[in-house]
């Protein structure tokens, strides 16, 4: 994805309050939720990117986003807005929203 062509349909951000940050289990829940949407979804630690594929468990874990970091989301596709709001809710719920939400 070239930065020039990047025109997301939906964006969002929230502060990561979870104690351990994006460690293993939160990363798994996060990518599992992202995969439920057909939109392309990205996560970044700045609203300017660089953007990471939110559906890639390995890349999301590699971000090593720690507590109190602001995480940014961008999505492109028909359900982009739903994807962003669901992911924001998951992070804001301290990852207590189960995968069955």
């Amino acid at each position, binding site marked *: 994805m070239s930065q020039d062509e990047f025109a997301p349909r939906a964006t969002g951000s929230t502060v990561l309050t979870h104690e351990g940050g994006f460690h293993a289990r939160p990363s798994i829940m996060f990518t*599992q939720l992202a995969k439920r949407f057909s939109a392309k979804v990205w996560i970044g630690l700045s609203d300017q990117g660089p953007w990471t594929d939110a559906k890639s468990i*390995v890349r999301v874990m590699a971000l090593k986003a720690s507590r109190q970091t602001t995480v940014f989301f961008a999505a492109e596709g028909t359900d982009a807005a739903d994807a962003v709001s669901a992911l924001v809710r998951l992070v804001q719920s301290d990852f207590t929203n189960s995968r069955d939400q």
Partner: protein
Amino acid sequence: MNRNVGIVIVSHSPDVAKGAADMVRQMVGLDVPLAWCGGDPGGGLGTSVDAIEKALQTAWSDRGVVIMVDMGGAETNSEMAIERLPEKKRAKVVVCNAPIVEGSVMAATESSGGSPLEKVRRAAEELYPRM
């Protein structure tokens, strides 16, 4: 929805294999066909082609199965177990080149989202790319 890609965990130690499988179940959930085996039939460390063959049946999915191995015999015995499968099934099984515990969790996470075999394998192998 189609069944997801299955995961078979093969370690020389039954405790390691079971522990890795527990991590998959608790962290990723129940949406992934999963089986593990480890130890030789005499109760010592080792792997067994028969046990791997049985695990492949347990975790079988028509979308394919990835086998996670620890080292040496786990890999060669897994390849022998694959050889025993009917030809049509053989092409749907791959042995992953990834650390057994972390790779199992990564592969299962990818599988739980409905990804195809090759993508599941890549998720596990992407973790620590070979130099």
